[in-house]
């Protein structure tokens, strides 16, 4: 149980996490303001790749010697999260390369 609950075994740990959570939300709201329409899709795609951070959670969950249902679910989580991360950053890069290539062609 303690392993699963991790930092939440103490009240301080929980409050700290809640603080980080709230501040990160405010940061996210402030991070982007005016974005040209050209970049809407690459930004969405890049942010989407970052939301594949659940790969970390999946790795932690898969760290078990037993091949039980929980581990198998975590294994699928690793596969899906890795597809999201690797595919997401690559496809964003492809989009951005095209926008950049276009600029070079124009100058």
């Amino acid at each position: 149980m303690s392993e699963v609950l991790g930092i939440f075994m103490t009240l301080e740990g929980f409050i700290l996490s809640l603080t980080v959570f709230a501040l990160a939300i405010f940061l996210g709201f402030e991070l982007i303001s005016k974005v040209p329409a050209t970049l809407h899709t690459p930004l969405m795609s890049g942010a989407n790749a970052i939301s594949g951070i659940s790969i970390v959670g999946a790795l932690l969950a898969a760290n078990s010697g037993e091949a039980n249902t929980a581990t198998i679910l975590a294994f699928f989580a690793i596969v899906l999260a890795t597809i999201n991360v690797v595919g997401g950053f690559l496809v964003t890069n492809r989009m951005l390369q095209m926008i950049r290539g276009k600029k070079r062609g124009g100058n």
Partner: protein
Amino acid sequence: MVEVSSLLDIGYLISATLFIFGIKMLGSPKTAPKGNMYGALGMFVAVIVTVLKMQLSDGGIEGWMWIILGLGLGAAIGYWMATTVEMTGMPELVALFNGFGGAASALVALSEALKVYTSETYELATPIFQVYHLIPILAIGASALVGWMTLTGSLVAMFKLKGGFTIPFTEKWVRFPTWGPSWLNYVKSGLFLGGLIMIIMTLNDPGNLGLIYGIVGVSCLLGILFVLPIGGADMPVVVSLLNSLSGIAAAFTGFVVGNTVLIIAGSMVGAAGLILTFIMCKAMNRELFDVLFKAFGGSTKESLTRTKVGSDPEEVAMVLDGISKCIIVPGYGMAVSQSQHLVKEFADILEENDVDVSYAIHPVAGRMPGHMNVLLAEANVPYEKLIEMDEINSEFSECDVALVIGANDTINPAARSGEGPLGGMPIIDADKAGVVVIIKRSLSVGYAGVDNDLFYEDKTMMLFGDGKKMMTELNSALKEL
């Protein structure tokens, strides 16, 4: 060894910092490619730190096989999908990746739920539960509710972007339905409330896996019902909102496994995704509430009562002879027919004859904002020739010919009336040009299901046919002049 493991948390701080700079830089054209690199680097650091932390913990890594196999398989599939996709299929791919991210978060939560509820220590720990110990239990439910909804919603959005799907083992193509009577909103509210109640119930009865599966079921259904009534034209907004949801799911999962980098990156993407959703809504002059809860297009398609005689490419080529200004208005039809290279060739021919050529880009042309920009960039159209709607609209009055290729709703004057499904959406003023040439398969209505008066005007020349075929014929007709 404990100190080293704790010191590794600095790695998570570096990773979170890279994410912050990554998102910030992705918002500006000059820094965007670097921003994407920073994001990827941040993810790499997070994975390495996690693996090291697990190896240094008591007992080290027990599931090497799962981890290496999972990472390898995922990376191979992701690489293959991202590098082989046609640029026209890119919006669907983003939707699909987004669904995978949401599903990964939800699966982690489910995996942890199984571990907690089946462990013997859980029974022992129960009596000493404090209020804050209930947070992970709450987070498991919340992550399940948001995560599965993201998966099913993204899958429906993907099929809607494709327009339909082929039934397995047959050749039959089915158009993906858009369905949503107004009473469906009550069903959705009821399901959401039901999901919330079940999450609260897990607090009193954390060992009850039936409740967790109940939340999973409700969430899957909600995702489908949520996207089903929304028309294809609004799909970019939906995908952006689902992207925000997958971030929130990751943050909740962070509370489940007690990991700060998940909480930071997840909530940041959740918030930034929401802002991007609002920016996109503003570009379309739509309210987010209307997009989500007022069925738009598809359900009530106007039937056509008028006809228009089509023109042929030779006629159009003659009209184009000797003009001084031409504006090209691309739409989804250009993407589908892959005719961007031919459009560029068309522009080159005109420019050789001293015609001023530019491109009018509607913010939601195609199926994603920026879709047209990417396609035309692929065809080496110079960046400064792509002009956004607000800047170019005033130029149409002095433009001799507007060539519309595969666009419909974004040039429909019905939007100006402020009524009907398109009411209030800003449009490209193609109808103000001297002559309007429209390349389109037929007179059929666009995604919004509204007939287009512009097709029937005397100054409009319709070229009925596939974009690629028509552009080829038009280009050869121009060369023969």
